[in-house]
């Protein structure tokens, strides 16, 4: 497939950017209309949390998609999507720190150490932080492509911590967190599969060793 023109990619990026702002805009609009329901803080918490997970999974699907669809240029959307995951994650954390706990440091520390779902959530955010900070061109140059890529594999662990955070916080209905978990497993399985293929290939180039002898 022919790669799209530079102009088209730029246009698509602007469109993606606006779409990504959609969930936050809807929240904002509902906030101003006072139609966030009886417990607006609960709604803001859930919405920002849900979109953090969605954006993490969308970011993680860029690599598989560009390979399956043979559209390598999709990589140019990955940083923006990853940063939106961080954006919604930051809003989610801010909602907790400000609206939910109202900056009560003592209570938050207690939460982080005592409540495993908070521990998992904080871990997910902490793992996203270095990725957002090193998302710039300068940082990729400074770290070098190889190290940068190694560092950015932290997203697997961040997404896993995010899903665990969700699983641990629900009282009984695990259907939704498990759905996110299933998608994450699928995305990670694709990578494991690719990694397996790459290993087999590199082995087939090495001197032939019969399977029975190993």
């Amino acid at each position, binding site marked *: 497939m022919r790669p799209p023109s530079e102009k088209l*990619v*730029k246009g698509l*990026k602007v469109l993606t*950017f606006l779409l990504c*702002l959609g969930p*936050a*805009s809807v*929240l*904002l609009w*509902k*906030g*101003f209309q*006072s139609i966030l*329901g*009886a*417990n*607006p*803080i609960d709604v*803001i918490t859930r919405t920002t949390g849900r979109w953090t997970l969605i954006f993490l999974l969308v970011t993680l699907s860029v*690599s598989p998609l560009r390979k399956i669809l043979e559209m*390598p240029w999709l*990589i*140019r959307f*990955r*940083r*923006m999507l990853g*940063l*939106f995951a961080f954006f919604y994650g*930051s*809003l989610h954390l*801010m909602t907790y720190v*400000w*609206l939910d706990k*109202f900056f009560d440091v003592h*209570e938050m520390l*207690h*939460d982080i150490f*005592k*409540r495993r779902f908070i521990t998992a959530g904080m871990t997910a955010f902490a793992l996203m932080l270095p990725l957002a900070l090193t*998302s*710039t*061109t300068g940082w*990729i*140059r400074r770290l070098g*492509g*190889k190290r*940068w*890529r*190694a560092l950015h*594999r932290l997203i*697997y662990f961040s997404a896993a911590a995010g899903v665990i955070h969700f699983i641990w*916080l629900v*009282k*009984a*209905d695990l259907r939704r967190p498990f759905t996110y978990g299933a998608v994450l497993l699928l995305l990670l399985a694709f*990578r*494991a599969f*690719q*990694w397996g293929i*790459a290993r087999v290939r590199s082995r087939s180039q090495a001197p032939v060793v019969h399977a029975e002898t190993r």
Partner: protein
Amino acid sequence: MLIKQSSDIPSSEITSKSGYMSRRKFITGAAATGAAVAAGFYLRSTDETHVVEANNALPGVIKSPLSTTEKPNTLQDITNYNNYYEFSTDKYEPNGLATNFRSRPWNVSLEGLVKKPKKLDIDTIMKLAPLEERIYRHRCVEGWSMVIPWVGFPLSALIKAAEPLGKAKYVAFETLFAPNQMPNQKSGLLAWPYVEGLRMDEAMHPLTILAVGLYGEALPNVDGAPVRLVVPWKYGFKGIKAIVKVSFVENMPPTTWNRMASNEYGFYSNVNPQVDHPRWSQAKERRIGEFLKRPTLMFNGYSDQVASLYSGMDLRKNY
């Protein structure tokens, strides 16, 4: 463990210039949106109009000295934010899903250790005692609370009508099982039907009521029509809805959430700010309609009336 990946992405691709520029825009946008969401919340007005329909008002409701003087939450909030897992695990959905629930005809079976088992229909039940308005604080185990103007009568009136035997030490309650009306009962989320229980002295306590109304009208389906339990010093899930069976038993009966996770939900489940739920603190609560959390009171503020029921009991163990 790091998963190795073939390095087929040249860094020039990852770091396109337009991406770099959009990052700038992104940060500005992020800051603006964050601030605006917060501002939006502050501007949310809290006094919504009460939407009370005048067609099924309950006659002859008397005021009760046991009511709180706190301002009740709006009917809108009470009926659109609650847990009713038989309909949905989402707190905003039950109202719509409960619209076609049939609360008439309705019978409640009184059985177990009673002089003679019997069935009472809902109209008889509503005449067991004068209907009172009981404005109670309601504290959910999840950390939110409301003030709700129930209409009901003391559970003790029903217990007297049931004529329990001296051996009866506990009262067990059961919700209707009707998966065709309560869609979530088709799922295996909880062990249906929902069951709850009280110790006899808790059940006989004057604060414990059977609610048949809300805001002076018949109880809305979403809040447990036609008859539900309200025990204001306990977490909300003790207030079993759509009751069809009340049985009198000698031993502590099973309760749904306790069966689901016994380390999280005890039989007593008294509101207690000192005993945290394993997954969240119970020290504070968010009163629906308020921004800042308020401290949770022991026994939900009903200590004077009910603390004596538990004297000598370790409430950390008997949570």
